[in-house]
């Protein structure tokens, strides 16, 4: 029941560092929260230790046989004084914690890019939660510089990010534990969240509000990279999709455009402009398929296309009965869209 030994055990189990862990901050917000957690932990531990100490004393003293009445009155008097001390301790402790919490919150709000505290222009993103994937749009006043993608966030180190959170169906919640706390995405409202990554790495985000059947499979890949790499990614993402090269890719392209795929998905630069499903323009460079359900490899991709319901039952991509040769062609085409 004591925390420290188990904390050590968790560390030994490799629990502290993780791609989806609040204990491994890679951003300003999560770092501040972890510090605050430290404050809470130690004060709460002290309170717990005092309670257990008092309890232990009370239990051990049970070995005394009949206590005289005068001794009991003495105990009562001591207990009254201790009670007053305890009340003071609780009030002071709670005050410290409340103030600590308040000031942490305030500092994080002031660190928000909108107030101009940061000397970098924030990146603005609009994230729309849907059952059960994420639509990601990088905003830019220049329309041709806008990026639309899905289920992944690429961010540079050290630049504040302002994300507008919306939902088109039920309540979802955007949460990257390594970077910051969560904010709900509520239909009919928009919420905002600020991030400020401080360390490169690959992290994982997961929807944190129960949103229906496949809530467990609604994850987002978050890639934090140095500015140079991020600019490269950005430049590539603005480009329209690569044209298919080779017979197999062209066959896949043709199948895609002529069948149900293009009714739901969009690929910039092609006749596919569906808005129901994720944008696939640069699909091949995405780490995962199905909002974090499977890694983006050839085998997994074809398994997904062959039967998306078998992988993620109930998701909005139907069973399509794609013929096997077309399946390979489609896979080849989609894997060319880097």
């Amino acid at each position, binding site marked *: *029941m004591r925390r420290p030994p*188990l904390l050590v055990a*968790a560390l030994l*189990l490799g*629990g502290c560092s*993780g791609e*989806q*862990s*609040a*204990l491994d901050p890679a951003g300003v917000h*999560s770092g501040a*929260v972890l510090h*605050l*957690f430290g404050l*809470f932990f130690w004060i709460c531990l002290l*309170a*717990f230790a005092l*309670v257990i100490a*008092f*309890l232990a004393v*009370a239990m051990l003293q*049970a070995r005394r046989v009949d*206590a005289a009445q005068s001794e*009991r009155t003495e*105990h009562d008097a001591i207990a009254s004084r201790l*009670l007053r001390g*305890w*009340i003071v301790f*609780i*009030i002071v402790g709670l005050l410290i*914690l*409340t103030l600590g*919490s*308040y000031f*942490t*919150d305030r500092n*994080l709000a002031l660190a928000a890019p909108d107030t101009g505290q940061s000397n970098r222009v924030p990146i603005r993103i609009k994230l729309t939660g849907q059952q059960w994937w994420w639509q990601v749009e990088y905003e830019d006043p220049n329309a041709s510089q806008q990026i639309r993608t899905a289920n992944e966030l690429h961010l540079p180190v050290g630049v504040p990010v302002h994300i507008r959170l919306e939902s088109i169906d*039920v309540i979802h*919640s955007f*949460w990257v*534990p390594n970077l910051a*706390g*969560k*904010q*709900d995405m*509520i*239909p*009919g*409202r928009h*919420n905002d969240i600020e991030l400020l990554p401080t360390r490169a790495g690959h992290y*994982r985000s*997961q929807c*944190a*509000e*129960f949103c*229906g*059947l496949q*809530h*467990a499979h609604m994850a987002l890949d978050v890639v934090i990279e140095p500015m140079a790499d991020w600019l490269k990614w950005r430049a590539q993402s603005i480009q329209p999709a690569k044209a298919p090269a080779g017979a197999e890719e062209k066959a896949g392209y043709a199948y895609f455009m002529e069948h149900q795929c293009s009714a739901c998905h969009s690929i910039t630069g092609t006749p596919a402009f569906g808005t129901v499903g994720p944008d696939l323009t640069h699909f091949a460079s995405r780490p995962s398929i199905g909002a974090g359900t499977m890694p983006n490899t050839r085998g997994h991709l074809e398994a997904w296309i062959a039967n998306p319901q078998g992988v993620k*039952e109930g998701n909005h991509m139907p069973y399509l009965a794609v013929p096997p040769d077309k399946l390979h062609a489609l896979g080849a085409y989609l894997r060319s869209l880097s």
Partner: protein
Amino acid sequence: MSRRGEDPKALPRDGRDLTGDALHERLSLTWHTSPGFWGWLTTVDHKLVGRRYIFTALVFLILGGILALIMRVQLARPESGLISADRYNQIFSMHGTTMMFLFAVPVMEAMAVYIIPLMLGTRNIAFPRLNAFSYWVFLFGGIMIWVAFLFNVGPEAGWFSYVPLAGPEYSPGKRTDFWAQMITFTEVAALATSVELVATIMKQRAPGMSLNRVPLFAWGVLVTSLMVIFAMPAVMLSSSFLIADRLVGTQFYNPTEGGDALLWQHLFWFFGHPEVYIIFIPALGFVSQITETFSRRPIFGYPVMVLALVSIGILAFGLWVHHMFATGLPRLGYSFYTAASMMIALPSGVQIFCWIATMWAGRPRFTVPMLWVIGFIITFVIGGLTGVMVASVPLDLQLHDTYFVVAHFHYVLIGGAVFPLLGAITFWFPKFTGRMMDETLGKLSFAIGFIGFHLTFFPMHFTGLMGMPRRVYTYPSDIGWNMLNMISSIGAFIFASALLLFMINALVSYRKGLLSGSNPWEASSLEWAVPSPPPPYNFAHIPVVEGRTPLWDAGGTLSVVSGLRVEDRELLLTTAIDAEPDVREPSPLPTIWPLLAAIAVTALFIGSIFNPWAIVWGAIPLAATLTVWFWPKGPPEAEPVIE
């Protein structure tokens, strides 16, 4: 002062000449419930209704526990294909619903229904027919939702059914409708028992039991019942709006038409936060009674304890937004709720101190109920402290909707309510049944239960900090949650086996336990003055109370008042604050009409899931049954006490 038209001095209305066995026989005849099935259906004896209420709630505990074990089997391994997503979502929704609505609140009310009249020195609870009605409504509501679940129509949106997920567009079929109507059943049942308990505690106390002499369990039940009366209407409103949205297309939760998804959250949590204190405060009462008895001295700091109970009850209504810290409401507002959520730690902390001080300044005996109290102190304090953590907005934004919160609320609910409940059942088992529960089995269930509980839920603090969200039917194998989940699953089975052992102990002891006598624990409150199990009339004469610990103050003989009828059912009402004898109140005879009214209500509620016209047509049999139930009868009205 007797029946109209008769000479008041002619009849010996209180059987003054009857004593001992003759008095017992006469009173038993007046207060008895006929044996057999008909008696079972018509009884208004609070003890019989209370017993079945407790038993039914414990059945729901077992059912909810089985669901928990199924979930833990699924989550023991990553990407387990054991249970489909849809089934799992129904299972966790049913687990929460069963535990919160069908077990936790009803079992506390049920213990109160049984114990309070005995503890206060009266013969029956107030409004006994309403009491019977409450049980039937609770039973039928519980059966409805479980049958629905077994037919694949169980709730699937969690135990608090956030809209729009639970709304008409995203929750097709009748699943959420059954859930919303189950709320209606259980809230009617809870409101009914709360009203009775408030009336009993305020007006039916033994003479001399002024408010400053009321046992702490009764104070806890009073605060709880008042909280139910204030909190339940909010959930009634929210679930009715949901039913209306889903059945007839109103727009309460439709943002496009002026409604708001957050309205649901506000209304639900305005009820939902007091709800957890409704579960928790009676448990605090249990702890006080047990600690006092086994420390062999009155509770330390009685006025402070009462103040703490009342302030928890009031403060609990000011905290609900802490469930909504991630929804994007104004930050300044959040700060108030952080402060309030922190503040409620103060009365709880004070109470913990007073219990330990009672032990320290007393001569404690570590019987099984006392062990559960110690388990409660250790566990609940951890839960309360993690509660203080999630009360902070920035921390909560990392911890909300993760397994950290799951750990927190299981610590406070199991540690804070179930442990005291198990101690209380062990403690009052001799009074309910006349036999003692086995001490060795009891100690064993405590030890296994304590270890199993912490093994299950302590790792969840880490799982949550490491990023595992709630309500996921599976998780990837490469994140690092595998070992912790496996430990939790093993712990769950250990904890379940402890509960199983406890149930076996109860069942075996019921048949073969040591006979207990009326006060095996040498406790101080009035219920221990009557035989075990109590006779149908509870007290042959209403006792008089001169202190907080009547049986200890009396030193062997308890003074009584006489004057209640023996040939009719009659209670003594006393004044609200000083408990001076006031009037004599008739108490109803057994009747079938509460059951029939409950059936009519059930038909109305279930029908209205499918068709709004059921409300109109269903009101007719309901009106009929209620009319017969309330039809004024002949017995004398309440009479003032003479001299």
